[in-house]
């Protein structure tokens, strides 16, 4: 972690950033997030990843639901669809089916994903829709000013849990591993370079990739998911972890006190688009009569 041994000069760094090219993926709209929000590093991570992968802005669609994280599309210079609370995955599925040539990135927070939108996750995952789902998990509702979320810790005090949260938090990684997601990983907003690498890998994956990004909410959570606490808890994924071993991935996912950062699980299987192409081929070959006559 000693990256800054050499002094960094602002002008040189700015020159380097401009030359890098990832700024063309940034929109002119300034993010509305609070200063210090972990989401800044994600926005940066995505633009760098898109740039690294050489994707044309016009061929990328960022789809979101509602929430702090879901403001994301406005801050990137690609096509974007800021939809409804909880509906990011079915809309993103429609976009991908509507035009298979597009690179579809779904983004959202933990409330959007695991509360109101939880019913859609298993289906996007099991269908293996070829898209990337980035869940910015800060364990709280920020946009509505600090209520408990499905990933809030037990005992967490919020405006909706004044007597402490008593609902067991969900384990998103365990959910996705059991939902047949074909790519499951975890990153941390406080490790931006690793985060960028993980986003890049997730987009590269053919099929449904799920990246949980742990992040603090600097405004409404002063006790639990702070940079300080998260920074102490997270660890690198063990080097000997085999990402094709789903049971091992599940065991790792259950170690919530020390979240592992890295690729938990990956498998290659047909995407929804491929299944549909196969259906089209079969339809030509079989020439089924419709029901009735």
């Amino acid at each position, binding site marked *: 972690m000693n990256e800054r041994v050499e002094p960094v000069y602002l002008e040189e760094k700015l020159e380097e950033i401009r030359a890098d090219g990832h700024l063309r993926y940034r929109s002119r709209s300034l993010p509305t997030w609070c200063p210090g929000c972990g989401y800044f590093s994600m926005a940066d991570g995505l633009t760098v990843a898109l740039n690294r992968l050489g994707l044309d802005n*016009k061929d990328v*669609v960022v789809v979101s639901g509602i929430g702090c994280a879901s403001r994301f599309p406005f801050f990137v210079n690609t096509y974007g669809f*800021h939809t409804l609370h909880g509906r990011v995955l079915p809309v993103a599925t429609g976009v991908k089916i509507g*035009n298979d040539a597009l690179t579809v990135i779904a983004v959202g927070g933990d409330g959007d994903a695991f509360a109101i939108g939880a019913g859609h996750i298993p289906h996007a995952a099991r269908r293996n829709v070829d898209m990337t789902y980035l869940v910015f998990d800060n364990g709280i509702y920020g946009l509505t000013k600090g209520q408990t979320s499905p990933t809030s810790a037990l005992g967490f005090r919020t405006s909706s849990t004044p007597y402490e949260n008593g609902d067991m938090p969900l384990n998103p990684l365990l959910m996705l591993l059991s939902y047949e997601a074909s790519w499951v990983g975890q990153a941390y907003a406080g490790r931006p370079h690793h985060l960028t690498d993980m986003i890049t890998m997730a987009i590269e994956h053919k099929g449904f990739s799920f990246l949980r990004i742990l992040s603090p909410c600097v405004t409404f959570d002063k006790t639990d998911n702070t940079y300080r606490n998260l920074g102490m808890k997270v660890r690198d994924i063990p080097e000997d972890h085999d990402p094709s071993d789903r049971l091992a991935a599940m065991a790792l996912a259950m170690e919530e006190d020390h979240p592992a950062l890295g690729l938990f699980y990956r498998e290659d299987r047909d995407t929804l688009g491929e299944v549909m192409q196969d259906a089209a081929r079969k339809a030509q070959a079989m020439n089924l009569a419709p*029901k009735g006559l």
Partner: protein
Amino acid sequence: MNKAGTDIQFAICGSAGDGTIAAGDIMKRAAAAMGFHVIAFDVYPPEIRGFGKCISRIRVSSEQAYSLKEQTDVFVSLNDGHAIPHVGEVRDCGAVIYDDHLIAPVPEGGHISAHVRPAQIPYGLPIRQVSEQATNSARSRNIVVLGYVAGLLDMPPEPFHKVVNQKFATKPPAVAEANIKAFDAGFEVGRKVFRLDDVEVGSAPEADRGEAVMMTGNGAIARGFLEAGIQSYFGYPITPATSIMERLAVELPKAGGRFLQTEDEISAISATIGAGFAGSRAATATSGPGLALMTEMLGLGVMAEVPAVIVCSQRGGPSTGLPTKTEQSDLNLAVFGGSGDAPRIVIAPTNVEGCYRCAGMAFEIAEAFQVPVILLIDLYLSNRYETVFPSGRNVFAPKPRQAPERREGEEYKRFALTESHISPRALPGDPDMMYTATGLEHNELGKPGDVLHMKMNAKRHEKLKPATRYPGLTTCKRFGAEGKVDVGILGWGSTFGEILEAMFEAQEEGISCSAMKVVMLSPLPEEELRAFFDDCEVVLVPELNYQGQFANLVSGALGRPVVRLDRTCATPMAVADILAEVRRLASDVNEPAHAAAGGGA
């Protein structure tokens, strides 16, 4: 309905395992193949397995008919227990056909012959025996009796043979052969019977509009979609819309399109809107409960100006309601459902041909106005069969897209305020026009800052107004007498068939009346409606809901009074009910005392 020429209604009643619907299906297709107009409606039991009641009613006519008749001319019982309550619908001198050799004893009144009125004509035959002799099986009873009907009424066997062969084309040849044998055996029996009824099939009219195709409202919608180049379909099973999904599941992959059964209706509409955003001609179909779930996403489609097509086939409500019974009670939901002012286009065809044409144009209209289009039908329209004369090829084929002129990068005004209120739409993949669509109120760029709420609201409403005059789409139409009339009947959806039948009968009785169908419910064709109200002393609005939802819509929009005829009888409206109301209103209009009290204007 012209009284001259053929106009016969068949009804076949049996239990679920008797092949009742299959026999009705062959009958309707054979009649269509002979060149007749056909309207048919099947009633199924709600339970999936078991021996629930099935009735297939088929009206065969030489002139276009607009609804089923209340009286049946030829009635077939494949199960007396189910059929007995329906014998009364057979007209005087009509035929009641049944098995006169039951296999098990029944108590007094257990046989249908105990319930045939003296004016009706009983025809018994040993249906089961004939089937067993012809095919070594009692399973062909439905086909035997079909042959009997054809023989009795002197109908040519060839069209039946053709349809039977088509129907069993995918089965081993022995199946079709056995069914032909069963048909012929029944036909021979029927041919020798001494006729006492006065049912005349007559000859079919000369075909002048090409070959008729038999389809249901749902089938017509699927066909319209396919001809219009549908590219993606997302659906969730729900009665009575499911067969649209099932048809497209088979046909869409053949046409290179993409079909997905989603996890719920919310997902279905979400994916439809997503695909529409990406430029795909996308549709979904549901019923009232599903549409209720969809309204939030529908609002996003309105706000983000995304084209999409949503079919809603209404059934009895509210809540789960009457899933297998027809009703017209989702008008409010379709026209107004959702949060905020969310104008959308709602098109309600009145017959199967209308389903086909409206579905054929729905994508074009959705694209032209950048808005979700709801096709509002009902169970009666979804499931009833009619002969339709499909358009020549390519009538509904999609027109080439006109991409907007290039704008520079982030300055592209996706929601530019224009004279037509319609803004050129870029699709993902179009270079240099990246924008973010949103459900937030926004400015011309689509950004949620510096919002123009009043202007954008006006834009979303005003842009739809020309839809009532969209070329090629009948958004309203007047029938019957022109000019001033005593009674005007205003209708929408499937009920308009009964309205037309009632109006023709009222005209024959000398009542001055006229009927208007309104196909576009949102926006309303107000100018034409106003002219109709100006011409009518009184306007009657028959519809199948309790609140008079269409009456409310029209009288609210026009500020004119209407007379309501609201029925929630779980069946199509009775022509007699409408006719009685028309008679009453006509006599009110013409009653001198009433006219004098009215002030002699």
